[in-house]
């Protein structure tokens, strides 16, 4: 078997395994979110299904699948059906460019070279930002097609919010790009080789914080969960959705959570690299998994702790604080990088 054929087989295996693993992970993340929420709130969370209640998500999926597929009579039916997938599919695609282990190095499997990435794409960062922008369409279309005032308000809020925060996010990511001198995730991780003080979160601490805050807005989680603010807009753009269509939205949200956690750890926390080189004997995917779990926990922690901003406050933070700060961060990074060569 020649090397290209082996690479193709590996690629197919990776492309199948990655979504499956994410789906399994999401099922358990939903369970853990509920369990942690319970612990934060002095409750126990789900307990019945499976050991420690851990099969709760599967029960939920079964329930959602068995529900009636309800489409509002006056909705735009084609768009109403399409909207969940516009959010769902881009969520997965980003994982294709994220490295979960060494690429192009010594690593091999059965004697063939094995790259721990599905697609070593040169403009991975741009792809990530572009796919994030596509998801906005899903939210806005879902809100608009439902033909409900609450959905419309939620969709518009989400649209405005995600676009505003994407700017700050884009500018803060450019700092990393300049430091790695590349837009490829593989090169960015390679740029952070070494112990944890080589990771970008130390030189890019401002950019990293801006990125983290912007991802909170991108994920529609508190303090920026205005799009589905339960107490104001019932469920925002999800108001008219039910059954598995609603399930797909929820699912996409959690896939996004995993993906964004992966992106944060790749851009600022060394991706699959061990915090100390001594610990390199533990394989890369495991480190990436640990980091993703840590960030997912952080996002949960934030969600169950703090308040929600008002709409105009959210906008003023995005435009008046985060955007100027991220541009400043970019300018400083550019100067430092060009002076230091």
């Amino acid at each position, binding site marked *: 078997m020649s090397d290209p054929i082996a690479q193709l087989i590996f690629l197919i295996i990776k492309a199948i395994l990655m979504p499956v693993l994410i789906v399994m992970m999401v099922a358990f993340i939903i369970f853990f979110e509920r369990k942690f929420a319970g612990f934060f709130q002095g409750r126990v969370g789900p307990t019945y299904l499976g050991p420690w209640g851990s099969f709760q998500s599967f029960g939920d999926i079964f329930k959602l699948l068995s529900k009636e597929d309800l489409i509002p009579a006056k909705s735009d039916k084609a768009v109403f059906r399409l909207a969940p997938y516009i959010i769902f599919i881009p969520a997965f695609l980003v994982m294709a460019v994220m490295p979960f282990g060494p690429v192009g190095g010594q690593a091999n499997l059965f004697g063939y070279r094995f790259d721990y990435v599905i697609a070593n794409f040169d403009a991975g960062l741009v792809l990530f930002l572009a796919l994030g922008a596509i998801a906005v369409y899903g939210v806005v279309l879902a809100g608009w097609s439902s033909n409900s005032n609450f959905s419309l308000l939620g969709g518009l809020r989400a649209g405005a919010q995600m676009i505003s925060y994407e700017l700050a996010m884009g500018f803060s990511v450019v700092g990393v790009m300049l430091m790695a001198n590349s837009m490829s995730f593989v090169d960015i991780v390679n740029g952070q080789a070494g112990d944890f003080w080589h990771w970008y979160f130390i030189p890019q601490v401002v950019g990293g914080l801006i990125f983290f805050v912007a991802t909170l807005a991108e994920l529609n989680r508190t303090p920026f*969960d205005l799009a589905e603010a*339960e*107490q104001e807009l019932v469920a925002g753009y999800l108001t008219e959705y039910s059954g598995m269509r609603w399930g797909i939205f929820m699912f996409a949200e959690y896939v996004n959570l995993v993906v964004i956690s992966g992106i944060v750890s790749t851009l600022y926390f060394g991706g699959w690299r061990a915090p100390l080189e001594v610990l390199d004997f533990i394989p890369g995917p495991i480190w990436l998994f640990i980091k993703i779990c840590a960030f997912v926990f952080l996002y949960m922690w934030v969600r*169950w*702790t*703090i308040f929600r901003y008002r709409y105009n*406050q959210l906008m003023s933070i995005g435009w008046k604080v985060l955007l100027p700060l991220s541009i400043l961060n970019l300018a400083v990074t550019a100067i430092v990088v060009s002076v230091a060569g």
Partner: protein
Amino acid sequence: MSAERPTLEELKERKVLSRQRVERSGEVMTVSMGPQHPSMHGVYRAVLDLDGEVIVAVRPEIGNLHRGVEKLCEERTYHQIIPITDRLDYLSSFVMNHGYCEAVEKLMGVEVPARGRYIRTIASELCRIANHIMWLGIHIMDLGTQTFFCICFRDREYVLDLLEMLTGARLTHSFGRIGGVAKDLPDGFDHRCRKVIDFLPQRIAEYERIIKHNRIYYKRAKGVGIFTSEDCYAWRVTGPPLRSAGVARDLRKDEPYSAYDEVDFEVAVEYQGDVYDRFLVRMKEIRESCKIIRQCLDNLPDGPFLARDVTHSLPLKKNVLRDSAAMIQDFYQVFQGPLAPKGEVYRAIEAPKGEMGVYIRSEGGAKPARIRFTTPSFYHGQALPPLVEGEMVSDMVAIFASIDVVLGDCDR
């Protein structure tokens, strides 16, 4: 100084911005918020005219929970009305019993023994604490934090346990009786109650650490939903919203009833009249309530807790099967009811949500000819339009929560 205690004009100035927003509004979208809406606290319905996120006009609709309480009361004897009053403001049931009993006692001229008055004060203040803690949880949940809601419910549980120990019920206590209360303090109540009221102020300090200096809460609540004392008078808004506008009106001080003139406490007053100050006022009130309960426990007089009034109050249940006089009294009270003289009375007390008044017109006999409850939630619910017009949708839920409306109390 003016930042601490703004004058009426200064407060009015601060509302100019929201008025301008209403004047500048263009095309509006009408949204029906409620009756099935997560933050309408029951079945309140508000029809909103929105220009983007700004509320241009509100048309509140109440009455979805109307149960004809006042009409029901006309068909019952004075004793039988007590459980109905529980269902007015079901989050502070005993206070409702209390207000009703005060009015009936005024009508019939019944003297409540000292111990009865003290126990009533203790139970009322426990209800006030439970109500304010619950309010805090819901108010914060409307601003987006569900965790805090659970923390508040956990702490409310301690108070509800006390009330359960005292009255036998957690929600609808039916503990008041004409001429006193249903039961004496149970064994061990004193000890447990002291433990709770020693521990609650620490919890309040903890809440304040979490919320008072929280930047997001401050931004969401400060200067939002300003209601000046003038507005409060115009819309008959009482209780914590009135006190947060700088008016030290508290019926417990101004027209003392029960044991309130024998205990020492302060009226919580703040001056900005916004959501944030309503929060501060309620937190202070919980502390003052703890103080009142402690004083009542310290000075609890001995003696009967229910008036020995053969014509107007029930006998003690334990005597009914042993003492023939008590049995006759029980028979009369249950089958005929307490006989009231002709006349009309109005009696108002300070419920946790505001002033709760009871008007009774009697034409003799054991049933009232007309009974009218003037409950705070009704007036607070109708004051929503001037409170929220010109504010944003997100603020509306915060403001609506901050004036503390319970629909059972509002619709009756």
